[in-house]
């Protein structure tokens, strides 16, 4: 344990790219909120720059990206790179959507361990975030 901060985990739920299918993002946003996290939903069509800026301004612990358009291998590396530039590489980044199997190891190699396909339970995502958040310690044993 480093610094115990007595606040809930703060999550940016973001929809990058042109894709407007926001069912998953909205359901997950509610599930995380019901699990006691603070959730900021960015709305649609955010650029990686806008998402990382939001993470910085909101002092987010986690960024959850929802991408169903196939643009994940374009968007995710850019988000990770921008986080590094901002010194935010300890922000946990996870992604959900229509992700072909072959891309999962590539996303893992970027440091994105949480890759959630259709059918993933909300509880699994909540648990994953609780156990993998690096910036936030009060819910981690």
């Amino acid at each position, binding site marked *: 344990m480093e610094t115990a901060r007595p606040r809930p985990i703060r999550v940016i739920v973001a929809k990058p*790219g042109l894709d407007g299918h926001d069912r998953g993002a909205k359901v997950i946003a509610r599930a995380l909120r019901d699990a006691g996290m603070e959730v900021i939903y960015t709305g*649609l069509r955010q650029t990686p720059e806008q998402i990382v800026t939001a993470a910085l301004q909101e002092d987010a612990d986690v960024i959850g990206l929802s991408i169903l358009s*196939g643009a994940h291998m*374009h968007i995710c590396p850019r988000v990770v790179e921008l986080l590094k530039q901002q010194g935010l590489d300890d922000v946990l980044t996870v992604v959900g959507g229509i992700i072909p199997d072959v891309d999962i190891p590539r996303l893992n190699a970027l440091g994105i361990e949480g890759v959630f396909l259709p059918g993933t339970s*909300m*509880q699994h995502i909540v648990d994953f975030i609780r156990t993998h958040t690096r910036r936030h310690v009060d819910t981690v044993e």
Partner: protein
Amino acid sequence: MTRGVNVPGDHSFTTISGRTVGRVYSADDLQDIDYARDLGGPGEFPYTRGIHRSGYRGKLWTMRQFAGFGTPEETNTRYRALLAAGGTGLSVAFDLPTLMGRDPDHELSQGEVGKCGVSVASLADMETLFEGIDLGAITCSMTINGPASMIFAMYLVVAEKRGVDWTRLSGTLQNDILKEFIAQKEYIYPPRPSMRLVTDVFSFCAERVPRWNTISVSGYHIREAGSTASQELAFTLRDGIEYVQYGIDSGLDVDTFAPRMSFFFNAHSDFFEEIAKYRAARALWAHAMRERFGAREPRSLMLRFHAQTAGVSLTAQQPYNNVVRTALQALSAVLGGAQSLHTNSLDEALSLPTEEAATLALRTQQIIAHETGVVDEVDPLGGSYFLERLTADLREEAEASFAVIDAMGGMVPAIERGYPQAEIADSAYRFQREVESRERRIVGVNEAVSEATGTTPILYIDESAAERQLARLAEVRKRRNPALVARTLDRLREGALGAANTMPLLIDAARAYATVGEMCDALRDVWGEYVETPVI
């Protein structure tokens, strides 16, 4: 209201939409239903039992498989394969930049070109897309909404250049912007100018392209976004009513454009509720058209619909299970009297479908059509106590929902205050919680779960399609007459500022090889862009 017989403890039996159903239904449950008034025979008002007297005996539904990926060349190859395999209509899936009215070289298009559909930037792409396909002989559906008029203008110009008279063209433009604001979110302009683009297509086609379906009022995306069956039905039909009202307000006679309106519903997993939904939809539309708008032409009263099996029901786990789900969903659409059907492929929770998977999906329809015998009788489930009760209940619920939306001033004001959006988000979350708690079982997800074995072959779209599209676009920009492009776009802006029909202006711009992005930008200059306030 639940009728049917239930004993204490039976109340946990609900449809996928959360509707409680009885254990058994009988004639006692149908006492308020009058055959002639509420059902009518097939081909008779209010068309509950179908719009055709002979059902599928006269003509099977159109097997229309939605397809598009990568470049126009690649998609053209897939279309020829689908037609050769016995598909009877085409259905174009555009990529997201095209759907959002952005050219492939726009910064927002990076990483998206050709990914979830085909990239069409200019007339040159449209010519390639339909190379070797006789536009006078096929029916073509185009799933596009924000830039529907721009893409349709290009299609008309391709026909013109090939010498196919516009009066011979047959097909459907989705052109349903209201469900974009409600569910799919591929809008460009604010609702009111967007509605003008729609009614401009209504009046243009009534005069010039009389066999074209000018709109496909869509519940599909509303359901995919998480609505219940009842919400899908009510919001879609109320959207249809809104379009008719706008058409009439723009000066059109209802019977000149209403016969060319079509609908598009989801074929979801709850078998009987889905069949009841389609039957209720026909009766609701017939009544609304006659009573609200005084339509007289029988074709104005008949709701014709396309159905697509539920993409959202497909699972990434045990993907071959999706073949079975899709077959059952397709059967519900057929028993509900669909005019046209798309069956999803088994791999679509993972990627766009491979050619093998798309062929199997088409075969599923062919098996229903030729082997099951369900096409031989019209509305074979009509008269089932349960189905008729469900149909009547769905109708009543939709009427109640119409009253709520009417009280808000119609669907456009209801959307502006976020009403349907919030209702759908609530239903989506309720459903997900039911799955989580295993009240709702999904095979392979929370029931009969097994470890993943092997990988499913998928269609992988790499960046080379985008590179080829960027090169093509650069070539088009170099070869066209820039002064002519600028002039047609200026006329489009002027027309949009005034009351001119935008279709002829867009056709002129398409002839000059103006791009989708340029045409959409010209109208963005005049009307601005819509930004939604997200409702979680």
